[in-house]
């Protein structure tokens, strides 16, 4: 057996397979899709300015992660399964309406409301 044969046999055991590479790719892109913001340019960009309407604040939030970054063609649909219901065909992640009322004020009120209260002995 020649050295090239040996190296080829070894390379086959350590080389990244196409299947593994595809898993890694999907994991990376989908992780980015569910993250709040990939790389904020500055801290102020994450805080909607006060005084705007709720719609403006919502649009400000989603501008940090435009849907155009993920064209539908980049994610081919998973093969349909007879055992799965149509619910599984919904896109991954929370719908935009889920975040509609999730403002800073709401978060602050929720934190305040759930803070433990000191009880007199």
């Amino acid at each position, binding site marked *: *057996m*020649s*050295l*090239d*044969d*040996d*190296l*080829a*046999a*070894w*390379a*086959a*055991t*350590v*080389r*990244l397979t196409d299947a*593994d*590479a595809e898993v*890694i*790719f999907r*994991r*990376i*892109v989908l*992780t*980015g899709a569910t993250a709040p913001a*990939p*790389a904020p340019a500055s801290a102020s960009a994450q805080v909607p300015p006060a005084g705007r309407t709720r719609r403006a604040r919502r649009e400000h939030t989603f501008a940090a992660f435009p849907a*155009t*970054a*993920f*064209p539908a*063609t*980049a*994610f081919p649909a998973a093969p349909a399964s007879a055992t799965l219901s149509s619910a599984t065909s919904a896109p991954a992640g929370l719908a935009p309406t889920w975040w509609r009322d999730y403002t800073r004020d709401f978060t602050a009120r929720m934190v305040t409301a759930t803070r433990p209260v000191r009880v007199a002995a």
Partner: protein
Amino acid sequence: MNAAEFRELYETNRAAIHSYFVGRTDGGTGARQAAADLTQEVFLRCWQHRDRLTDMPDDGRRAWLFTVARNLSVDSARLAATRAGVQRALTDDPAARPATVSAPASTAVLAAERAAIVGAAIARLPETQRVTLAMAAAGGLTSAEIAAALGVPAGTVRYRLSEARRALAAELGTYDDEKEEER
């Protein structure tokens, strides 16, 4: 950079980055998964900073990827050293050497055993030779591509490859096709 552009960058460079990490780990049996984890980390950082890479030329993107890869490999050097120690301990143990197995084995098993022996021999190479050899053999890169990725002259890459092949041929008791062709 959108997802389609990122995929193109990923497909173009994943083999080079992965084989680089194979060489930086130890080239042994656990190198594939360890290198896959580090490769994922490199491209995850790329995806997170894709805006910075949008206007960059291809050479600049590859250089950026290998800068991240080098930094990651330095960060994981301690883990790699531990893994190499375990690998050496296993291969030094006569009971763990695949060549001592006397039971009848299929062709696939024999091939896997031979690959493990080659991997153990590669693990004993100096790191610079191991990285170069892994990028050439597993990554399929040319000397010029390896030189550009590592930031060393192409002549240095060819010398490292030659030295690595000579050491491997001596240790494995095989003949080197390239040396035979030179004669």
